[in-house]
């Protein structure tokens, strides 16, 4: 193209490319101005998109109209190595001074490296600090225990009357609201409708269960009032509270663990022990 006067179509293409680059520059300036004036996410995004789209159009037209597309061929040598090269390379490793010929030493080296590799894995154990509980223990233990009072999400202790009929109240062990496996919920049901007694017992229809789905551990926060069922929003496991929180639909396979409760001398609800089973998702050594 150089040295010749450009053809009509080349001139037209050059004009389009120049316009596209000008639009791109305008977009860039627009972005800077929008940023300076705090013009908001949308305009910033639009300006940047225009800037890059202008660039893209200009470059695309350039590549289509002003340079050849296709029409070239490159030879492909294939990947069969020349036999002579192959033999010479192999000879390098077979030479008498080559370390690969000393099998005994290689075995010893391999042993040392293996030992080093295994030893290097040991510090990984520090990822779980040594002063913490071993995982199985910590999954089984929760902050609940005899005498631990039930509080709401603001930390206020609850009386039996604080749990109205037909709603679920999230309850926590006093002092441990943020612990992952502790959340539970209290509901008031009609004991005459129980098909199966709740695992943790009940106080005149007041029952407390673990809030964590036994499938993958999401809180079962959807309560279907009349049916006495709770539903997990993550994978739609459904538990029938009237039948001992038995799973009735979805992927969960175990009932929700119950929490045994009583009314303490101060009139507040308190646990008489831990959950009837480890809360949340299943694991290998779950009893």
């Amino acid at each position, binding site marked *: 193209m150089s040295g010749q006067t450009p053809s009509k179509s080349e001139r037209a293409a050059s004009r389009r490319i120049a316009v596209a680059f000008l639009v791109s520059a305008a977009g860039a300036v627009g972005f800077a101005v929008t940023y300076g004036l705090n013009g908001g996410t949308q305009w910033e995004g639009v300006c940047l998109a225009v800037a890059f789209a202008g660039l893209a159009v*200009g470059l695309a037209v350039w590549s289509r109209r002003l340079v050849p597309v296709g*029409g070239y061929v490159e030879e492909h040598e294939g990947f069969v190595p020349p036999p002579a090269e192959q033999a010479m390379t192999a000879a390098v490793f077979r030479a008498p001074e080559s370390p690969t010929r000393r099998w005994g030493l290689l075995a010893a080296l391999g042993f040392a490296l293996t030992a080093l590799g295994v030893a290097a894995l040991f510090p990984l154990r520090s990822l779980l600090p040594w002063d913490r509980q071993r995982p199985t223990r910590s999954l089984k233990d929760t902050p609940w225990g005899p005498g631990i009072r039930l509080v709401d999400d603001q930390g206020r202790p609850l009386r039996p009357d604080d749990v109205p009929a037909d709603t679920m109240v999230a309850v926590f062990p006093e002092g441990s609201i943020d612990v992952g496996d502790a959340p539970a919920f209290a509901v008031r049901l009609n004991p005459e409708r129980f098909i199966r007694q709740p695992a943790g017992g009940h106080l005149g229809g007041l029952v407390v269960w673990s809030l964590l789905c036994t499938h993958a551990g999401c809180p079962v926060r959807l309560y279907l009032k009349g049916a006495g069922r709770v539903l997990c929003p993550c994978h739609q496991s459904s538990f029938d509270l009237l039948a001992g929180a038995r799973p009735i639909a979805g992927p969960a*396979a175990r009932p929700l663990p119950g929490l045994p409760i009583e009314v303490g001398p101060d009139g507040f609800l308190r646990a008489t022990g831990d959950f009837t089973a480890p809360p949340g998702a299943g694991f290998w050594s779950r009893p």
Partner: protein
Amino acid sequence: MIMGPLARALDDRLRLSPITRRALAKIFPDHWSFMLGEIALYSFIALILTGVYLTFFFDASSADRVYQGSYAPLDGATTSAAYASTVRLSWDVRAGLLIRQTHHWAALAFVAAIVLHLSRIYFTGAFRKPRELNWLIGVTMLALALANGFTGYSMPDDLLSGLGLRIITSVVESIPLVGTWLAALALGGEFPSDEMIPRIFITHVLLVPAILVALISLHLGILVRQKHSQFPGPGRTEHNVVGSRFWPGYTLRTLALFAWVLAVLFALGGLVQINPVWLYGPFAPAESSSPAQPDWYVAWGDGALRLFPPWEFRIGGYLVPAPFFPGVVLGGLSFVALYLWPFIERWCTRDRRPHQLLDRPRNHPVRVGIGVGALTFYVVLVVAAGDDILARLLRVPVYDLLALFRVLVLVLPIVTGVLAFLIARALCRGEAASLGELTRADLRRGARPAPRRPTGEDEPEVPVRHRPGERIELWPQGEVWRWRYRNEAGQLTLTNNRAVTSEEEAVETARLAYPGVDRVVVPGPPPPPARALRVALRRWGRATAAGSLLVAALLGRRRERRRRRDGEDEPPPPEQADAISGGGDPT
């Protein structure tokens, strides 16, 4: 082409010009499907650029922090530093939300481009020898992309990400024997731990990206070393690559693609809201959001968790919980299948030859059937991850949908796989050029069982048959030599991608690229780029010359005949050398 003193100085010290010349001449095939991997690459660059910006404002800590800023509903609320800084960078850092949303969109596009690229490689058989190694690297990068997508999604410590993290923790805990230890080591204790956000952060911004950068370099290095594969076509053989040169044509085109990717990502980041964590609220162990859907590329796992029935069992008193199968086994099997596919196929077809020419998908109906079936399986899982939303939209009970999906996930892949197999076979056996042209006769032909073909898999490669009219033309261009390939009638002209230093080298490279073509013409100068008028003039001139030659020849022959009749014995005029030589020796 080395311009400027700086380039010369570099060349003097590093001897770059030989490498540069070859690199700039590298051939890229012109088919659009070869650019899917580039979209992934450019999304990754966008991810790094936007991600680095985000790290300046994100505080990867679970420590309590009081958010004070312009998002009024959370103003004064105590949350984790991670959550507070995410809300802050979205609402109170100028351009912060744009960059954050662009980052998130880029992550979605990154994985999508990888999956499309992988599908292209799969359906065209580009994973066959010698490219198995790059397939393995590519599948590893897909796994890393999924991992980094998930860790990025989990960092803001909002309610939705906390639920996702909790589910993943449960899935890991479901692994027999080691699961609880793995989860506890990763999190530094029981979920939710104070260590998890910093650990996820360093995994997301350093560990995985560093491995990805290394693997991308390796991927591209192997690509350059092995050269591109290409679709079959005129002038294309197992011994060449046809397309555009890297410089200038492909450079401009790929930069245009880069700019397009950025334009689309910034448009999405600016205009389409994604992951509004301020609406979800901070993570709290007793809260959950409804609906709860993950990003699309994790949705297949979520869908599998929803669909898998509540089956769990005990081995010697130890529990294997239900999430183990859809979470760990399915994910593991998916990647094992991906890793092993090139070797499974090689084992089945006994095809051990290297391939530079790609398959048209239709020519391998079994591969198409398996691929379409597998894709359908994962698509059903992705859709199943939205079953609660679908149920709400369609006003049907969610458990009816669940039952439907449980059937569909098993039946639909078989149906679509068999259909794809039959259609591919119909296309392969019939004359239809595309899906739209398929006739009923083609379909019937496709449905018939395959005729017993003599097994030709172990046959040595058939050399390219010489087609009449195919020729190689060489010509000197100043100090250097060029060559080009022309097929019969000269409709197709393919020029070699770079000048070579000698005629011998030109012949050698031409023979490498076209081993079957024996006609080599020296010299075959290319016509100068011509204007329409000049072409017409030349054509007219050529016609005139040919006409006058014809007239002269006729006259000559008549004269000769007359002379012969006259009994004169004269030697015939010397034949005009056409300069055609078999071996291309210099004449």
